[in-house]
């Protein structure tokens, strides 16, 4: 699947803003080949695929959530990671760090670009450094999606560093390619030993999600409390019909209190409401969710502390 298609699949229409579109590789180590120099190779791939590089980065909205997303493309030189790919992804991560956006990186690569020598190797370290800042220092959320094929340097750097790693079904995911393993072991590699399902069984990633469910898995149903802008967004998928897409937005200063309603009995009902001036009470817990009283109190306390509103108990 090409990167543009994937962006269309995930991002809401009309919200995509690309970054660094004009970054092109240069032949830093002057890699001379008799038939085709590196520069010519890049040129021909650019014309053939219509892409400037192996990755497209930018920001957009995923069902209303603003996110930063980077998508790699296997068609451009086998998705190989060179200086430009590293730089674009690093800039994307830095942008997301500064704006507190969640990050999604879709990986599809054959490895590091050999024509750039050790420079492409150091891109792994560069991206890992940016991710350290993003994940460990700022504690933001990063999802990496591994598609077919994802091998080599990408697996050994940002591919496997996601807070949640999602793989596509039947994807070829590996660190050392099949040929290398066969050379080292002098035996043939059995079929299916580097597929997503097999590695999933060995505990390497969190989820296997097919493409048609991907968008919903990434975005369905969330409550967003943004203290900096002072707004609260609540997004839910409702019933088909007029209320299919429920998207509520209020100002944080309109939130009057958090209300806990507990009705004991055989069918105990413990619901958390958020009182909004002018809109009444909006329930926050799911209808089938059965929290224990202690859990409910904890949640209410956290939320009330964050929003700085009082708690009412019924």
């Amino acid at each position, binding site marked *: 699947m*090409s*990167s*543009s298609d994937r962006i*269309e699949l995930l991002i809401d*229409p*009309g*919200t*995509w803003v*690309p970054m*660094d*579109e004009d970054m*092109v*590789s*240069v032949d830093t180590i002057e890699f001379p*080949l008799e038939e085709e120099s590196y520069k010519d190779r890049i040129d021909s791939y650019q*014309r053939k*695929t*219509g*892409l*400037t590089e192996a990755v*497209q980065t930018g920001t957009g909205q995923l069902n209303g959530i603003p996110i930063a997303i980077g998508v790699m493309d296997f068609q451009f030189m086998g998705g190989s990671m060179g*200086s*430009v790919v590293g*730089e674009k992804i*690093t800039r994307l991560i830095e942008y997301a760090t500064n704006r507190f956006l969640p990050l999604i990186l879709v990986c599809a690569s054959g490895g*590091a670009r*050999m024509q*750039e*020598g*050790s*420079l492409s*190797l*150091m891109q*792994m*370290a*560069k991206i*890992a*450094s940016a991710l*350290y*800042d993003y*994940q*460990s*220092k700022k504690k933001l959320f990063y999802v990496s999606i591994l598609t077919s094929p994802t091998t*080599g*340097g990408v*697996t*050994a*750097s940002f591919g*496997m*560093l996601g807070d949640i790693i999602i793989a596509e079904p039947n994807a070829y995911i*590996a*660190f*050392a390619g099949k040929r*290398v*393993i066969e050379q080292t*072991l002098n035996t043939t590699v059995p079929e299916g*030993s*580097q597929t997503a399902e097999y590695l999933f069984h*060995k505990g*390497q990633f969190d989820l296997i999600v097919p493409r048609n469910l991907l968008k919903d898995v990434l975005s369905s149903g969330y409550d967003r409390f943004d203290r900096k802008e002072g707004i609260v967004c609540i997004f839910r998928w409702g019933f088909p019909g007029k209320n299919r897409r429920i998207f509520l937005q209020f100002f944080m200063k309109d939130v009057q209190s958090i209300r806990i309603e507990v009705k004991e009995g055989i069918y105990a009902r413990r619901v958390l409401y958020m009182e909004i001036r002018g809109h009444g009470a909006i329930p926050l817990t799911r209808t089938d969710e059965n929290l224990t009283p202690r859990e409910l109190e904890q949640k209410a306390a956290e939320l009330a502390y964050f929003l700085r509103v009082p708690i009412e108990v019924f």
Partner: protein
Amino acid sequence: MASISHSPVGFVGTSASDLLRSSSNGVNGIPLRTLGRAQFGGSSSTTRRDSRVVAKIRKVKKHDHPWPDNPDPNVKGGILTHLSHFKPLPENEKPRPVTLEFEKPLINLEKKIIDVRKMANETGLDFSDQIISLENKYQQALKDLYTRLTPIQRVYIARHPNRPTFLDHVFNITEKFVELHGDRSGYDDPAIVTGIGTIDGRRYMFMGHQKGRNTKENVKRNFGMPTPHGYRKALRMMYYADHHGFPIVTFIDTPGAYADLKCEELGQGEAIANNLRTMFGLKVPIVSIVIGEGGSGGALAIGCANKLIMLENAVFYVASPEACAAILWKSAKAAPQAAETLRITATELCKLQIADGVIPEPLGGAHADPTWTSQQIKNAINESMDELMKMDTEELLKHRMLKFRKIGGFQEGLPVDPKKKVNMKMKEEPIIRTSNLNIEDEVKNLMQKRLNAKESSVELPESDVNEMIEKLKREVDREYSEAVKAMGLKDRLVLLREEFSKVNLRDQLMHPALKDKIEKLRDEFTQGVSAAPNYESLKSKLDMLTELSKIKSTSEKNKKSATLKQAVNKKFVEIMNRPDIKEKYKALEAAIENSAGQDLDHELKEELVKMKKEIELELAGAIKSLGLDVEVVKSKAKEISEQIPLDVKIKVEELNEEIKGEIENVIKSTDLKDKIELLKLEVAKAGKTPDVAIGWKFGKPISKRWFYI
């Protein structure tokens, strides 16, 4: 296997447990003495051999501990050296000196020197000149060779079997070193060695890849190719060093991470990625030294350092020259070319700013003089650590981040040929999704505001109304286009539009046929619009639009009149302030004041009128200069001003007459007349003194009647 016969004579001096213990010492069987005694003692009695106890001697594995039986506490390096398995190789296992391809000429020279020496010893003749010259030649050849090494030759030297390994160096440079093992989750990888040691009194955490010194060791060490367990061991040690504040020194010497199915399952990529990420968060200085070959990710996993130093003949590559040649040149024989073009040697990497320094090696490679090399490494470590210890943690982290941030060559800013961007997803126009509810609300708000403004007599901000009108116009346009689409008239509309634009361009009068077409389309549309699905919303929006435009126009008018009033007032003030008029006005004022009590003189009135006329003329002139149409107003004003005093007078007189007339009528109409005649007679009779009561009698009804007029 020993069968113990159960004889009444016990085993003197021994017991079963004794026997077992002795067997565990590796001594098979029972000590002969006891056997002998037993037999001796038990020969008389009947040997009851019915029950046999068979004790199997288990050959327990003899653990290969590195310490000798009598450890010497005063050995160089302290007691800790007894714990290490890494001992100098015993003589029988020492590797044979290996010569590389390109060293062959040197070997020939050496052989010759040895031959000459032998001959000198045998014959006793003096061959010293020859020997000296040969030696000189040898030295020269050596220098020539080793100062002009090609990259592939350096790769071969880096992979030299006799090259000193990590532990060789460490035991040469540290006073004390203890190796720490295990990743605490399954395995102790021999390919990565970690430990704590001191150099010149300063304590560091060491870690590095360890290759073997001979084939047996190599197999044990897996040729320096770590598994995920090794990386996790290194990670654990890094956390430990960070926690306690030891600076970290890493030695890189690996062909790459071990490429095996089992390693894939264990998460080789993930282990390396984790190491990479963690290393950028360690708050202690990190120095990495490449002592042999640095193979791609496997090497980088412990190589994200503040300073990356390389030995002169060390190489660092993303793919080994053989693999690269196989992929790009389709044959592994092109390895020398690959090594050349990939720029993997120390000096090249220094130029690319990936490496921070080069440590010189002795002529002939590190294996020629390991101790000297180790000393060089020690100096390099000391120097870098001196520099890095001066930085505080913030600076250190930043320094490490920046070192890698600047690596990479690309070009941006120059516009790219759009043909190359065909498939890239371009920036899209943000869809202004204004929902119906929002518009209605906004209009309501606006109305509310207007009412409030009117009440408080404050001008409604123009911009708001304008904005709303713009928005509504857009919405109405959209609705119209949707209705047209729904009615299937879109194509005709588009065609007509095209024609119209063409006609406009050519600047001709509209073709009557075109006009007809447009009219027809309009009629159809108006007829069919009520049937269109979005008619309701269209209508409501149109209504809102008309209302708002009304508001706008009234506010505009108000504004206009306000400005006009202001302008006229200004002009009036100006005229009044003109000196001559001012004087006259003041005089008039004074005169009016003087005659305040009495009626205004006719003269004065005339003066007043004249004054007014003058002022009005001036005003009219000034207003004309404002370009306004004052004709009507002026004439009206004039008439009014002229007629006012006369009019009023006449009217007053008329009124008086009227009133009198009315009174007469009233009197006539009622029977008051008779009464009045009677009264008159009585008054004539009564004489001079009219009675007040009589006056009263007349006063009341008349006054009453007066009220009804």
